[in-house]
C-alpha cells in the first residue's frame, strides 16, 4: 500500500467515525453529506472538463436523469439496489445520445452546445408531465436515515475519487490529457479522440446518475428547475476551478470550500456567498489557474527555494 492510499484510508476512517463520535451533531453530518455529494459531482464533471478539457455547462442533465429515474422507480416499488444502478446506466446512455453529436464540436462551440442540451433536457422534463409530474415535480414518501445517506455519499465520493485517481495514471488518462492539450496532435499520435471523450462523458454521466439518486433520496422533492437548472451545472464547473482543474483531489477541495461558503454565508449574510465565489474565481483565474492545489504547490515551492537559516546570502 502506497503512502497516498494509506493517507486516504486514514481520512476515510476518520470521516466514517464522525456519525459515531458526534451522533447528535446532525447538522454537521448534513453539511459533510453535502460536501461528499458535491465532491462526487464535481469529480465526475472533472473527468471530462478537467482531464479532457471539454468544458460542459449542461452536466445537470445527468444529475436530473439519475434523480428522476430513481424517484420514479422507487415510487413504483422498484428496489433501491436496482434503481440506483439503472439510474446510472440511464444517465450514461443519455450521455452517449448527446455526446456523439456534441463531440463533433470543439472548444467554445462544444461548451455552448452543452448549454442548449441542458436547457432542452430541462424543458423535456418540464413538459413530459405524465412521467415527471411537470412543474409540480415528484415527491418521495420518505428518506433513509441521515447516517445511511452520509455513508452512501461517502462511498460515492470514494468511488469517484478512486476512479479519477486510476484514470489519471492509466493509458486512458494519458489519452484524455493528450486531447486536452491538442486534439489534432492526439489524433496524429493514434488517440481516437471522439471515442476517448465519449468514454469520459459516459463515466462522468454514470457517476452523476448515482449522485442524482442520492440527491433525490435526500431532498425527497425534485422538479425540473431544481435538478436540471443551469445554476446546478454552473456549480459543477465552479468547484473544480476553485480546487484545481484536471487534478484528482482538486474538485473535492473545491466542494469543501463551495459548501462551507454556501452554508456559512447563505444563512447569515445574504449574497455574501456569491460575492465570495466571484472574488475567489477572479483571483484564481488571474493569479493561479490551477486553483487551491496550485496555490499549495507554489507555497511548497517557495519554502523549498528559501535558503536555510544561517546560510550565506
Amino acid at each position, binding site marked *: 500500500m502506497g*503512502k*497516498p492510499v*494509506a*493517507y*486516504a484510508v*486514514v*481520512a476515510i476512517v*476518520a*470521516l466514517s467515525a*464522525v456519525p459515531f463520535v*458526534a451522533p447528535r*451533531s*446532525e*447538522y*454537521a*453530518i*448534513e*453539511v*459533510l453529506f*453535502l*460536501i461528499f455529494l458535491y465532491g462526487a459531482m464535481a469529480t465526475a464533471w472533472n473527468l471530462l472538463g478537467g482531464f479532457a478539457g471539454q468544458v460542459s455547462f449542461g452536466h445537470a442533465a445527468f444529475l436530473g436523469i439519475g434523480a428522476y429515474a430513481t424517484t420514479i422507480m422507487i415510487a413504483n416499488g422498484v428496489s433501491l439496489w436496482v434503481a440506483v444502478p439503472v439510474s446510472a446506466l440511464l444517465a450514461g446512455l443519455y450521455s452517449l445520445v448527446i455526446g456523439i453529436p456534441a463531440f463533433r464540436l470543439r472548444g467554445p462551440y462544444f461548451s455552448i452546445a452543452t448549454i442548449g442540451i441542458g436547457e432542452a433536457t430541462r424543458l423535456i422534463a*418540464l*413538459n413530459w408531465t405524465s412521467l415527471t409530474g*411537470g*412543474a*409540480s*415535480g415528484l*415527491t418521495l*414518501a*420518505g*428518506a433513509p436515515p441521515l447516517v445511511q445517506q452520509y455513508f452512501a455519499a461517502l462511498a460515492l465520493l470514494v468511488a469517484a475519487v478512486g476512479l479519477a*485517481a486510476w484514470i489519471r495514471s492509466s493509458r486512458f488518462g494519458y489519452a484524455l490529457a493528450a486531447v486536452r492539450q491538442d486534439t489534432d496532435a492526439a489524433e496524429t499520435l493514434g488517440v481516437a479522440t471522439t471515442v476517448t471523450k465519449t468514454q469520459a462523458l459516459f463515466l462522468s454521466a454514470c457517476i452523476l446518475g448515482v449522485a442524482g439518486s442520492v440527491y433525490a433520496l435526500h*431532498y*425527497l*422533492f425534485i*422538479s425540473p*428547475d*431544481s435538478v436540471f437548472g443551469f*445554476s*446546478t451545472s454552473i456549480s459543477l464547473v465552479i468547484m473544480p476551478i476553485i480546487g484545481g482543474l484536471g*487534478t*484528482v*483531489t*482538486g474538485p*473535492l*477541495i473545491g466542494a*469543501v*470550500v463551495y*459548501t*462551507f461558503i*454556501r*452554508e*456559512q454565508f*447563505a*444563512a447569515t449574510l*445574504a*449574497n455574501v456567498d456569491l460575492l465570495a465565489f466571484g472574488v475567489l474565481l477572479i483571483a484564481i483565474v488571474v493569479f493561479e489557474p490551477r486553483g487551491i*492545489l496550485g496555490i*499549495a504547490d507554489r507555497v511548497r515551492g517557495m519554502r523549498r527555494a528559501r535558503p536555510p537559516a544561517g546560510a550565506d546570502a
Partner: protein
Amino acid sequence: MRRSFLAFAAAALAAGTVVSSTPVASRADNGPSEVVVGAVLPLTGEESRVGTFYKAAYELATKEINDHGGLQLRQYGRKIPVKLIIYDDKTDPATSRNLYERLALQDHVDAMLGGYSTDLVQAQTVVPNQHGIPYVGGGGAASAIYKRGFKTIFSLLASIENLAYTECDFIEEMQAQKKLPKPLKMAVVYENTSHGQDFAKGLTARAKQKPQNFQIVMSEAFDLHGKDFTPLLQKVKAINANAFMSDAHLDDYITMQRQYAQVGLHHAYLTYGARGPEKSARDALGKSADYIVAAAWWNQAIPNAAVKAFDEKWAKAYPKLNAEWYAALPYETARTLYIAMTETGSVDKAKVVETLRHIDIRDTVLPGGHIRFEADGQINAPFVVTENLPDGKTVIVYPHAEKTGEAVLPVPGS
C-alpha cells in the same frame, strides 16, 4: 495527493465543527428560555419584492407577541418570548430546502413559518414533514403541495383552482347582467408551474361543466419570470377571444401587461388571476392596469374591523410599504401559529400540530374572517374579486357580502 486528502479531511472536520457549534436555546424545567420559530424567505432574487413583505409581516406579528411578554404557555406557567430566525433562500428551491434543514437541525426551531411562491414551498415543506415540525405557511397555494399526505403542513392560502372557480362565478353573474357575452371565449395563458396549471385546470373544468357560459379558445403555458411575452401575446391577438385569462406572478404580470398594451390587445374581460391591484404594479403600469379583474386572498378594501385594524397597524409599522395581500396573509399566518402554540400551552411539536388540525379562529383579516384547515392542511377560504378603476382606485365587486363597488364591464374600449 496525500496532503490534499489530509487537507480535505481536516477542512471537512473543521467545517463540521464550526457549523455544529451554534448553541441550542437552553431549556430549564420551567420550559424553554425562548420559543424559536424559523422561516426561509426569498429576500433576494426574482421573488424578493414579495419576500420582503413576508419578512416585515412575520416580524410585525412576532413583535406584537413579544411586546406583551411573549407567548403565554400554560404548561410552563409563564410567558415566553419568541425568537424569530429568518434566512434568505435567494428564490432558489434547493437553497430553501437546505436552510429549512438548517432551521431543523442547527437552530432546533420549535415551529416554522412558510416561505413564498409555489416552487419554493414545494421543495421546503418536505423538511418540516420529515422532522415532524409544525409549519404554517401563507405563500404556496397550488393544491399539489398539500396532496402529498404531509401531516405537519398548514396553509392559509386557498387553492388556485378555487380562485379560478370564484372568477367563473363572478363572470356568470356578469353574464346574467348582460355585461359579458355568453359564452365567454377565453384565451388562457398560465405560468408553467403547479400554480398556473391549477388555474388552467379550474377554468377547463368549469368550461366543460358549463359550455353555455365558457369556451376556451386557447390554452398555453409560459415560463416563470419571463422577459418577452410578445410571441405569446401575438398568438392571443390572432385568436378571436373575449377574455384574456392569465395566471402570473407579480413580475410576470407587470411585464406581460406592459407588452399586452404595446401589442394593442383589448378584451372585454382581463385578469391575471390573483394579481392586479398591487400598488407597485399600478405605479409601473399606469393606465394600462385599469379594469384588470383579480381574485385575491385579501384586499385592503374588505369592509371588516379586523382588516381596518391591521391596515392601521401596518401603516404605522411600515409607512413605505402598502398593505397588500402578501402583507396581510403572512401576518395572519404568524398569528395563527402563535394562537395554536398558546392554545396548546407548550412547544410540544406533535401537540401543536394537533391543535392546528382542529383550530378554528374567527374575526381574522381573511375574507369571511374564518381560519380552519381542511384535512390536507390547506384552508378553504373564499376569495374577493376586485377590479382596478381609473385614478388608482380598486373596488371589491364580488362576493356581495364584501362588495364595495360595481364592476365596470366589459372593459371600456374593448
